[in-house]
């Protein structure tokens, strides 16, 4: 067993006079080590998820070593790129000297020589490295007489390239080679005429291509979907979890006035690292789909009439109780908290109510990429979580197919289908089986044969509108925050069951999760605060938040 001595034997590095401690065996470069000391070293080409090329020269710093015995510091005469400087015991970095400042100003000036300063029409303005660094490290005066600028656009396939904005950091090229493994992007020409391009007939077209837009430190690579839609400084973002597959990528949902404009990956070393797939990235328009169900409707004869929520909430417990034997179908798109509350409520109405997890959507096989990124074949976010909840309330329950057969024989008088599916999931025959019940309540996002047949249709909330936790395929529980409010009249499952259970105050998923953690062994690790990167439920402890992976 390795004993780790805390104290004076810890390896130490010195950054601008600040002492930072290094964990044994830790491999940090200068940029990462400086970030630990709270010092930002500007950089373009370096990205923690990609190989180091050290070509932008923005992160040049003075480096040296400090002799532990004598305390003497010997500095190298040459400026070194911090991205390629391994920080070891006794490493000294100086990032605030005159020499460093001059080198940075020179790089900034160089990069702006031929850059068309079209920030006013550039999507990246506001989150552009070139802009930020220029204000921070650049110089006020423009000495180059190179004009006029050109501003050329090039269609690369999934994204648009604004050729002249490029700073040739080559992040996108490395991404397609190392992470997606598709190698569509390449550099053509030489020297100052260099450009990013694709080969003829081989456009940038892969399931991860959207990431190159996030990687681009300037506005050269533009998302065709987001282009000219919104200035980034109007956007507010909240931490979410992608619900498109069982990988459960951490995402940022960026919205302005309850309209989602863009989804971006949120760094999570334990799940998706820095990437998300295009399916997740471009899934948000569904949230604002005009075809979505609205409010609550009740069937009267052959037609469905809108109903007041209060009337529904008043009548439904009695009606379900009166119906007789009940069944609850849980969608694998529900959060853990919603599934738990739904089970609690249905069991309160009928202690013997059947609980079953709805069909698990699967498509093909897992898609694995060169950089280790996986798009799961299981196209739902929370199968594990919902199954655990269901089996807690109904151990050794039937499978969905068995249950559907039973339902077709008319074994259940009242059926509640909780939570929506993001895509059509039910066919006529299944709907007909469920229709045998005397009372059928369906919560869903989109009209389906089932909602047509239901007695009550409740409009559910989409992924950006719900708050709660999901358990991904690797047993990692992550909490998504609500980004936008659901359309008027739609109620997320959580608050709905919260109210039906008669609990007071506002819906508090945090409290529900604590209850779950106390009650169900599988979730016991989730009793405390859930970090942004989530927790691994298989180990009975808070997941170690991986050491600062970088500040990409």
């Amino acid at each position, binding site marked *: 067993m390795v004993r780790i001595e805390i104290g004076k034997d810890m390896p130490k590095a010195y950054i601008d006079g600040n002492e930072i401690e290094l964990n044994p065996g830790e491999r940090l470069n200068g940029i990462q080590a400086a970030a630990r000391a709270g010092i930002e070293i500007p950089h373009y080409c370096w990205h923690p998820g990609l190989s180091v090329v050290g070509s932008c020269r923005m992160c040049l710093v003075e480096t040296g070593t400090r002799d532990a015995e004598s305390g003497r510091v010997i500095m190298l*005469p040459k400026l070194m790129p911090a991205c390629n400087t391994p920080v070891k015991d006794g490493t000294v970095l100086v990032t605030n000297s005159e020499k460093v400042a001059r080198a940075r100003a020179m790089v900034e000036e160089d990069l702006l020589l031929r850059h068309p300063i079209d920030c006013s029409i550039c999507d990246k303005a506001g989150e552009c490295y070139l802009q930020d660094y220029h204000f921070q490290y650049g110089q006020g005066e423009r000495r180059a007489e190179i004009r006029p600028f050109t501003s050329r656009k090039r269609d690369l396939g999934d994204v648009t390239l604004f050729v002249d904005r490029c700073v040739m950091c080559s992040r996108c090229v490395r991404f397609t080679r190392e992470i997606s493994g598709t190698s569509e992007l390449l550099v053509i020409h030489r020297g100052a005429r260099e450009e990013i391009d694709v080969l003829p007939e081989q456009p940038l077209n892969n399931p991860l291509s959207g990431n190159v837009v996030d990687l681009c430190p300037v506005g050269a690579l533009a998302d065709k979907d987001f282009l000219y839609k919104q200035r980034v400084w109007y956007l507010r973002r909240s931490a979410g979890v992608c619900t498109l597959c069982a990988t459960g990528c951490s995402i940022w949902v960026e919205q302005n006035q309850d309209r989602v404009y863009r989804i971006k990956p949120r760094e999570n070393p334990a799940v998706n690292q820095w990437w998300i797939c295009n399916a997740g990235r471009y899934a948000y328009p569904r949230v604002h789909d005009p075809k979505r169900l609205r409010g609550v409707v009740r069937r009267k004869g052959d037609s469905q009439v809108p109903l007041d929520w209060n009337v529904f909430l008043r009548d439904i417990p009695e009606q379900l109780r009166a119906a007789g034997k009940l069944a609850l179908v849980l969608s694998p798109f529900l959060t853990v908290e919603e599934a738990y509350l739904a089970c609690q409520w249905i069991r309160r109405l009928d202690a013997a109510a059947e609980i079953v997890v709805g069909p698990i959507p699967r498509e093909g096989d897992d898609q694995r990429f060169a950089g280790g990124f996986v798009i799961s074949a299981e196209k739902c976010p929370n199968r594990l979580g919902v199954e655990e909840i269901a089996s807690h309330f109904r151990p050794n329950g039937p499978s969905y197919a068995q249950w559907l057969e039973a339902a077709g024989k008319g074994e259940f008088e009242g059926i509640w289908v909780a939570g929506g599916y993001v895509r059509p999931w039910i066919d006529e025959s299944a709907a007909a089986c469920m229709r045998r019940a005397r009372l059928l309540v369906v919560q869903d996002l989109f009209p389906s044969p089932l909602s047509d047949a239901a007695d009550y249709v409740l409009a559910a909330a989409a992924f950006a509108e719900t708050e709660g936790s999901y358990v991904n395929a690797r047993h990692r529980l992550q909490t998504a925050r609500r980004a936008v409010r659901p359309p008027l009249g739609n109620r997320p499952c959580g608050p709905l069951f919260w109210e039906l259970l008669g609990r007071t105050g506002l819906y508090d998923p945090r409290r529900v999760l604590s209850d779950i953690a106390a009650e169900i062994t599988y979730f016991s690790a989730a009793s405390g605060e859930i970090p942004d990167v989530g927790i691994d439920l298989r180990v009975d402890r808070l997941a170690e938040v991986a050491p600062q992976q970088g500040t990409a």
Partner: protein
Amino acid sequence: MDDYQPVLLANVGVEDSHRRAVYEARGGYAALRRVLRECTPAQVAEAVRSSGLRGRGGAGFPTGLKWSFLPADHPGPVYMCVNADESEPGTFCNRVLMEHDPHQVLEGTILSCYATRASTAYIYLRYEYPLSLRRLQQAVDECYEAGYLGKKILGSDFCLDIYIHRGAAAYICGEETGLIESLEGKRAWPRIKPPFPAVEGLFRKPTVVNNVETLACVRHILERGPEWFRSLGTPPDPNQSQDPGSFGPKLYCVSGHVQRPGCYEGPLGVPCRVIIDNWAGGVREGRKVKAVVPGGLSTGLLTADELDVPMDFTGPVKAGCLGLGTAGLIVMDETCSLIDFLYNSCRFFAHESCGQCTPCREGTSWSLRIMERIKAGGGRLKDLDLLLEIADGMGIIPGTTICGLADGAAWPIKNAIRKFRPEFEEYIRRTNPRGYLATHPVPAGHGPVMPRLENTQSQSRASDGRNLPAEAAGSAPWRKTLPLA
């Protein structure tokens, strides 16, 4: 020095010097036979280390030290790359070796591979050297026939294959790691170091990259011994602890405005003036030297007053140049415009910058834009300071970029403006007397035509203008000259 006998060029001029039979008849492959019979690889490496051989490709890194960086007990393959991508302007000595004495290069390569335990060598040959390609390939084929290459060479356990790879016709492919990338089939973007090629090079395996002339020297070190090698050249400067000295023979390429341009051999440390006056026959048409590029374009400029610097690894540095470089001298006489020179230099480096590092990619192109404008008559005096600042920003030894191209691009700018500033100022004052800035940069065309002197004098003149005796040129027995084709 006059009794110096050529070593590297000994076979040049002999009929069919590129054939194995001729090479063997003149003592070739004897060193290889002896070494494979008598020496261990470590002894060969030790001989090279103790000889003080420094890389002839330009940087002058001690070859023995470079070899010693190879991991001692690496289980996998070690690669040898022969850098034959000679593309520094003003340099053609490797070409002479490869065209006229390819077996000498191969023998040195085989010996070096033996010393470094490399079982595969790649000769990365400059694309524009078709004759070298033919002769080298013929020589390699002859070596396989004679058992100098292949399995179990000359009955020993040593195996070696040599492949000739024709380069990608770019200057940057001659940079050590750019060459490796290019050899791997990629874009020749130099790699960031560390890891150095000796640890992780070609195909991520330990790799040695050596220049053609360096390897040719290895052959002679093993034939004549390290002591012989150390007897030539300049010993270390006792005042400089870092200086390992400059030993051995060196090929000097002289081009430009001299009577007899060509490739000459002498020991390291020959004064620049001797090379120009005694060997190359002085400046053409009876003119005087104005400036000399000492060792390939990257190294900067010597003025006429600085021609007494010894051409060793430290000499040109003392005169403010980048270094000895490749010892490719370009002599410019008084009719040559430094504005034209600098414009041409900037154009070359802007064209050849690989475009990876920001300071080099943008700095070279920016300096070219400024030089275009100055040359076209739109310069301002403050442009000179700006040029100097750009040059200092991209090439301060040690430089700010991954490879040395930026340093090489910066040095001609720094030297030309710092040493010849009056000429630049005079030109700017004359062409743009009011100092206005043109709204649009004037496209670069041909600059003002410099007056051309009539060739009235057949008299050879030394670099300082004094007349040379008629028979001064061509009298020394060790001088070898080749037509520039």
